[in-house]
């Protein structure tokens, strides 16, 4: 569903992504790991279409369509979802109202009728039960005064409501204790199917104990320097990122 080819991108003239290649197929879970500053979050942002980043080279196809040519709202309409590392607060806008607007805007993009209030309420109730989310959270202003855990759960709840084809989880585990990680991961696992895919962006391996990836990629200096199975994540956990860094830096020196 997603094909990233030789993707270069940066911010204010500084190149951060240095030629990324990645192929994601329906039903797969991919994990992108890497040390701080390796470009993990940049990759997530570029895929979602954040304006701050400039793509200088390469292409991204999403179900055969040119993803990079679309504004972010169309990417969402096509089924791409980003669970934010730092979900944004909108004071005075109820979470329910926000989600309802999102659901109906995406339906509109797909040429479907807006969901009526009753159907929407029913869907909300189902997903609330599944995601173990409390009604009171949804009537509060979007993310305002939410704890770290509540914000991340709210992201996954939105994912459940929007049913994306590709969900990108950007450091969803950051700032969460182990119980919160488990809840969030359970939510993601419940949404997995053979038709959708998940791209987990994370610094630590621990989230991958709960969301088991089919592939693990290590990002370093804006490039995928290693790909492997779940084992690679465990290896990283054990040895730290330094062993990868040393390996790469040495080989780059040799090449120069």
């Amino acid at each position: 569903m997603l094909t990233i080819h030789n993707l270069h991108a940066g911010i204010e003239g500084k190149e951060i992504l240095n030629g990324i290649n990645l192929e994601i197929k329906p039903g797969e879970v991919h994990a992108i790991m890497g040390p701080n500053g390796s470009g993990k979050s940049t990759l997530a942002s570029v895929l979602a279409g954040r304006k701050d980043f400039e793509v200088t080279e390469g292409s991204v196809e999403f179900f055969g369509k040119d993803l990079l040519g679309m504004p972010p709202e169309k990417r969402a309409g096509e089924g791409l979802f980003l669970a934010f590392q730092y979900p944004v607060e909108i004071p005075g806008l109820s979470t329910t109202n926000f989600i309802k607007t999102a659901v109906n805007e995406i339906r509109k993009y797909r040429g479907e009728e807006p969901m009526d209030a009753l159907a929407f309420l029913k869907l909300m109730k189902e997903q609330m039960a599944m995601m173990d989310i409390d009604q009171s959270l949804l009537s509060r202003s979007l993310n305002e005064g939410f704890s770290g855990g509540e914000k991340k759960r709210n992201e996954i709840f939105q994912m459940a409501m929007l049913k994306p084809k590709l969900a990108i989880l950007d450091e969803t585990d950051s700032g969460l204790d182990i119980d919160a990680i488990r809840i969030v991961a359970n939510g993601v696992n419940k949404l997995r199917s053979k038709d959708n895919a998940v791209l987990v962006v994370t610094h630590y391996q621990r989230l991958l104990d709960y969301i088991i990836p089919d592939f693990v990629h290590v990002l370093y200096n804006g490039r995928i320097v290693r790909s492997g199975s779940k084992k690679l994540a465990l290896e990283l956990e054990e040895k730290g990122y330094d062993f990868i860094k040393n390996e790469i830096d040495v080989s780059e020196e040799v090449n120069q």
Partner: protein
Amino acid sequence: MNEISTIEKTVLSEYKYGFVSDIEADEAPKGLNEDTVRFISAKKNEPQWMLEWRLKAYRHWSRLAGEEPKWPNVKYPPINYQDIIYYSAPKQKVDLNSLDEMDPELRRTFEKLGISLNEQKRLTGVAVDAVIDSVSIGTTFKVQLAELGVIFCSMSEAIQEHPELVKQYLGTVVPITDNYFASLNSAVFSDGSFCYIPKGVRCPMELSTYFRINAENTGQFERTLIVAEEGSYVSYLEGCTAPMRDENQLHAAVVELVALDRAEIKYSTVQNWYPGDKEGKGGIYNFVTKRGICRGESSKISWTQVETGSAITWKYPSVILKGDNSVGEFYSVAVTNNHQQADTGTKMMHLGKNTKSRIVSKGISAGVSNNSYRGLVHVSKKANNARNFSQCDSLLLGDKCGAHTFPYIEVKNNSAIVEHEATTSKIGEDQIFYCNQRGIDTETAVALVVNGFAREVMNQLPMEFAIEAQKLLAISLEGSVG
């Protein structure tokens, strides 16, 4: 429930009330002198005392010799007061027996505005007084209201039918010498609404007035007076629109509210006068004096305003808290876009003991507009235990607009507690991106953020007007981000 899709539908539309109706008008000659005042008074067949009152106001105004208030944070070229028509009335039969006899063109005008003057409106529980240019052209539900003793009619009619009440209250809250525009209004006001709620009556429906400027080169000067007797309650709403014209038109209204013991008046405004075009050409100068007095103990006056229109807005709906334990409230959303300028806020004058006031002001600026909050909290010597809370928030869209806050606090009694909070924020790129990522386009995202910002005030509006007001916010900010 579907407010968002409505916003979205309307977000792309231009100022939709900008049409001109072809209605024959009966006008005064251009310019202002004593004869103009006499002309207006004679047209309305007014008693001598009313004419004297107007002339007194006129003489005071002419002694001011063009000294308009200089302190507001707004700029405009000098107004030529001799180039304005001070009286314009749609020509139609006098003494309408029912609204069915109304000029069909007039009726169509109000239908275009989405205001039905038919009695079917009863279902929605709103009684309407419609004022076009200078005169009231019809009031609905008069009979039903009269059964409860509620008087709801045009000011002209009140002067004829209830002179004792008008004499007793007119000018008691906003004296004819109050300020330049109030004096002008007192001299030439042509109509407006009058409401009287008798003792102990809770007015069963919303009373509302729609003001419409139609004729060219006219000023609109309406005068509204609401009196709530002991233990009564009334909720009143005014809405305003005007055609799109290249010239600026002057609107200088005066509104006076009187609340006696334990009475409550809730006054809401959705002001959508033509704001001028994107280059700042045309639009209404909205120079309005609104003031209420909580004369009785434990009385309450609450102003709610949603200001999206006008080229320039100059207005400070105020409350004089004279009665002990009385309460004053001011909830405001003021939006300025393109070249609009607003200097608006309130005055809370604490005179009685244990009086409370609450001010919530939300300013939204976009384009190259300027939006100022100006508020006074005054606590007099005898006002023991006065309490005020003020909150002034500004939201900026883009980086060419301005938001300003001018709070004035005068406290002469040590037991007072006065709190003021102010914030300024910019609509964030990250907020817009977050919405975009959920499939919401930028226009709708702005509407969501802005309506969220204004929610506390919107919640104060009667339900159906709240939805109308939300749509208005979205329309006025159309194209301001992007």
